[in-house]
C-alpha cells in the first residue's frame, strides 16, 4: 500500500475527507507531543516530517494485513497508528538481534567498509532511530552514520527501519553465501580487483558476493 491513486480509488470522496480530517487531528496531537506541549507551533517542514512519520507507521502496519484498504475503513486511524508504532519498535528490537547474527556470521575480511558497517554504522543508526517522530528517516538522523558497504541486491524503495531490516536480512544471506568460500580465496579476489583498479583493496566499496559471482 503506497499509492495515493489506489487509496483514492478505493475510498469515496466523503470517506477521503473524513480520513483527512481524522489525520489532521492526529497530526495536531503529534505536533504538541513533539514539542512536549511547550510550543503550539512548529516549522512547516517539521510538521511535514511528523506527518510522514505517522503515515510511515500506519503504512507499515497496514501492509501486514491481508486487506489494508478494508482495514482503513474498519479500524480507527488512531489505533492503526499505534499498532504501526508498536510494529516499528518491534522491528528496531528485531534489527538489534539481526545485527548480532550478522556479526556472528561475518566474513573474515579486511574490507574496511564491510567491517565499519557491521561494527559501528548500523549500531549508530539503530541508536539514533526515532520511531515516533522520524520513523521514515534512515541515515539523516546521524551525521556519523551512513551505510558504507554496498549490498548485492539493495531495496531502495523503502526507508527507515524497514530499510535497515531489509539490509540486515540481505547481509545475513550474503554472509551465508560467502561462508562457502575460504578467507584466502575472498582476499585474493579483493586483491586482484584492487590491483585492476589501482586501489588499496581494503578501501574499496565493493560487494564480496558480487565479486565471487563475477569470478564464477
Amino acid at each position: 500500500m503506497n499509492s495515493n491513486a489506489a487509496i483514492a480509488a478505493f475510498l469515496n470522496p466523503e470517506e477521503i475527507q473524513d480520513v483527512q480530517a481524522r489525520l489532521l487531528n492526529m497530526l495536531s496531537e503529534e505536533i504538541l507531543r513533539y514539542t512536549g506541549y511547550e510550543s503550539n507551533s512548529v516549522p512547516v517542514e517539521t510538521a511535514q516530517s511528523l506527518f510522514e512519520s505517522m503515515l510511515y507507521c500506519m503504512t507499515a502496519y497496514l501492509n501486514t494485513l491481508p486487506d489494508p484498504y478494508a482495514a482503513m475503513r474498519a479500524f480507527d486511524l488512531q489505533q492503526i497508528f499505534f499498532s504501526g508504532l508498536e510494529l516499528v519498535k518491534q522491528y528496531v528490537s528485531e534489527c538489534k538481534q539481526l545485527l548480532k547474527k550478522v556479526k556472528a556470521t561475518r566474513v573474515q575480511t579486511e574490507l574496511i567498509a564491510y567491517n565499519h558497517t557491521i561494527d559501528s554504522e548500523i549500531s549508530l543508526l539503530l541508536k539514533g532511530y526515532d520511531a515516533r517522530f522520524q520513523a521514515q528517516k534512515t541515515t539523516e538522523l546521524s551525521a556519523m552514520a551512513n551505510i558504507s558497504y554496498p549490498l548485492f541486491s539493495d531495496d531502495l524503495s523503502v526507508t527507515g527501519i524497514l530499510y535497515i531490516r531489509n539490509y540486515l536480512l540481505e547481509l545475513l544471506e550474503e554472509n551465508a553465501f560467502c561462508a562457502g568460500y575460504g578467507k584466502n580465496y575472498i582476499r585474493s579476489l579483493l586483491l586482484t580487483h584492487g590491483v585492476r583498479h589501482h586501489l588499496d583493496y581494503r578501501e574499496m566499496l565493493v560487494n564480496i558476493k558480487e565479486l565471487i559471482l563475477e569470478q564464477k
Partner: protein
Amino acid sequence: MDSRLSAVFSLNLFSDPTAAAQLLSLNEKTEPLGLTLSPTDVSALIQSRAEALNANGRIEIGSATIGRLVEAFCGSAYLSQQNYSPVLHELIELFYYYKNETLDLISDNELIAFMKDAFENRCGGSLDLLANRELQKLAENLRFGREDYTNMDPEPDELDEDEKEDLDEQ
C-alpha cells in the same frame, strides 16, 4: 497517502474557530487597565497571526498565542489604548520570527515572558530595541548553546586550541 502537507491541508485548518470570541472575552480582564480590543481589532490580529505564520513558514495548533501575548503585556506601563493594537501586531510578528531564530529551543511561555521582561525593564517600551537588541541577543545565546541564554551580557566564549593559535598568529 499524499504526504505533501501543503497539498492536503490548509494552514487555517489548525486554527481555533473560537479564537475571536476568546480574545474578545479578554477585554474583561484588560478593560480595568484602560485597554480594549474591538471586533475589528480582533479580526485584524487574527489575520496578522495567519500572515506571520505564513511569512515565517510555521504551523500552529490552535490560536492561543495572541491571547497569551495580551495577558502578558496588558499590564505594561508602556501600553495605552492608542498603541495597544499596533503593539500587539508587532509582538505577534516578533514572536513567530524569533521562534524560528531561536531554533525552537525555548518554549512559547518562556519566549513571551522574556519579551515582556525585556520590553518593560530594558527597552523602555521600544519595540525596536526589543527586536534588534534583546531578542537578537537571546537568539544568539541559544544558537551558541550558552547555558545562561537570558543573560544579555555573557562572558566571551572560551576559545578552543585552534582558535587560540589563530589569535596568536594575528
